């Protein structure tokens, strides 16, 4: 690795990484503060509406405690400082939806479910979509591959929610092949034996399937387009005339070249993929961040929503940074620019 590479490629990426995190977290801090309703007053009003009698001293104590819990003490600038401290220590306060569990504990139990689903499906759909799309782009006249293209044309525009719902109706109500919701059978304890793992896989299958098909269709289509453009290039024709085996041309020459924009595309679309995974989890009540978010929204639990959003922003930007830093390994040209 040369010095110019570090300066031209590595440093700008790193700066961008921190700037995006900074802006994202700042947005997460400021947006709820424009809310017309004060969360503290609302909580107290809720308690009162249940008929609890509260004397003024208790109310004042509660207000102080709630302000502390919500991180609302001091001026905006002080609050902003505390918020950053909280982000770094992972202390997002206490959840009001499962009082008094700390938000970070809820996130910690939900995050592995989401991350494993997200990473597995993203990689699967990316690889499958690109390989099939590459082959389909190269052998554009093949009947089977054209059928696949037609299917992708129908699936591609579906939003995550509608597609997942359609799969849910088809497989659980009509065919009854899969369990309707959840991450495991009700009441099952976490244990590392074959039964448990099979149960987890059976529950994860439908959410994973909908994410893989939907994502795969998108990668398939973009890959096919890129490959069709590469096909027209001289080096492909030269290789064909030179009598190199088609299989080698497709995988070593064409797909290898077409992969590069797809890696950038992967980095750029990770945010949307995460949004999609969260929505899909809601449909299948999969016990990840999405379902947690759903409950947080319904119960108006700002702390939890802010925690989930902040963690997601950190996770996504870090993943993008990792992809960006791995990119030069796959594209030798970047190093010499």
């Amino acid at each position, binding site marked *: 690795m040369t010095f110019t590479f570090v300066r031209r490629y590595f440093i700008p990426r790193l700066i*961008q990484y921190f*700037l*995006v995190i900074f*802006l*994202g977290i700042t*947005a*997460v801090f400021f*947006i*709820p503060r*424009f*809310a*017309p309703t004060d969360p503290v007053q609302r909580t107290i009003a809720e308690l009162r509406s249940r008929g609890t009698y509260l004397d003024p001293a208790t109310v004042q104590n509660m207000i102080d405690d709630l302000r502390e819990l919500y991180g609302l003490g001091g001026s905006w600038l002080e609050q902003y400082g505390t918020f950053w401290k909280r982000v770094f220590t992972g202390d997002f306060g206490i959840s009001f939806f499962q009082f008094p569990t700390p938000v970070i504990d809820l996130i910690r139990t939900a995050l592995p479910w989401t991350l494993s689903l997200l990473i597995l499906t993203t990689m699967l759909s990316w690889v499958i979509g690109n390989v099939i799309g590459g082959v389909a782009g190269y052998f554009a006249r093949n009947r089977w591959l054209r059928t696949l293209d037609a299917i992708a*044309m*129908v699936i*591609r*525009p*579906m*939003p*995550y*929610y*509608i597609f997942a*719902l*359609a799969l849910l*109706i088809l497989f659980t*109500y009509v065919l009854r092949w899969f369990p309707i919701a959840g991450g495991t059978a009700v009441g099952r304890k976490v244990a590392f034996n074959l039964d448990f793992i099979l149960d987890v896989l059976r529950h994860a299958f439908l959410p994973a399937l909908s994410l893989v098909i939907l994502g795969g269709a998108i990668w398939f289509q973009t890959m096919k387009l890129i490959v069709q453009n590469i096909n027209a290039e001289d080096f492909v024709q030269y290789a064909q005339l030179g009598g190199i085996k088609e299989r080698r041309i497709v995988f070593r020459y064409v797909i290898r070249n077409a992969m590069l924009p797809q890696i950038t595309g992967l*980095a*750029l679309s*990770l*945010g*949307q993929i*995460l*949004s999609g995974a*969260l*929505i899909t989890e*809601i449909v299948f009540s999969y016990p990840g961040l999405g379902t947690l*978010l*759903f409950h947080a*929204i*319904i119960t*108006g639990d*700002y702390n939890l*929503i*802010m925690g*989930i*959003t902040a963690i*997601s*922003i950190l996770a*996504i*930007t870090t993943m*993008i940074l990792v992809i960006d830093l791995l990119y030069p390994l796959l594209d030798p040209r970047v190093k010499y620019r």
Partner: protein
Amino acid sequence: MVRVVKDLFKDYRFAFSFSIFCLLVIFAALSTFSPYDPTFWFHAPRNLPASWTHFLGTNSKGQDIFWQATFAIRNSLIISVIAGVVSRVIAVLVGLVAGYRGRTTDRVLMFISDGLLVMPLFLIIVLLAMLVRERMNLVNLGLLLAFFGWAWDARVIRSQVLSLREREFTQTAILSGTGTLKLVIKEYLPFVTPLVFSTLINNMSWAIGMEITLSIVGLTNMDIPTLGTMLQWAISYQSLLLGLWTWLLTPVILSIFLFIALYWLSVSISEYLDPRTRVQRVGEK
């Protein structure tokens, strides 16, 4: 103009999706003839199967599903048009300014749009939607979505402008004393307009999908019928378990057709706009 339309209709996808889209618009227009007010409950007996008086039956809220669906499509289309048009204005402005001014302006604007692209936008939109929850209506929702829907298209427009800036006519125009504003509006905008239309359709589709998602998590006004709220009511009343198939399937099938129609329209139009693919389709030109 006639020739363009003729060429477009040569593509079976355009013909199909255009007809579907027109049908859906007519369906939405039917809402003006509705005998019922869509926000009222119990204007009909509850849980009726499909019949001649109620084409698609009635739901557990005592509403006629057919007429409810006409309002749903209409309102979803209104939201998507507001979101699409407003975000096009932002995208065009950002794209033109960033592309033409270049340097620091370009870098700052592109950094913002990159930032919007990589963020998990759904979460940010949820945070904002919670703020305006009480005052959520069609216009506010449209504007909220418009604010987040421009990033990618601004990039596309910017790269178009970047390539236009290098062409000779730009030099000619500048040397013959054309002002920046006039140059951008008179010379560049015509090149950008087709892009605006094809991205508009995609953006409308995105807005409709987002509306559905926000409704499912209960962040829109549940009294206004849209595709999303209709779905949400059907799901929260367990319509499938009650055997009310039409209640759930009407919004699902309508939205599937709407999404396919919008997508095929945009693919067909953008293939037509791209000279390379147009030659394959229409022949010489």
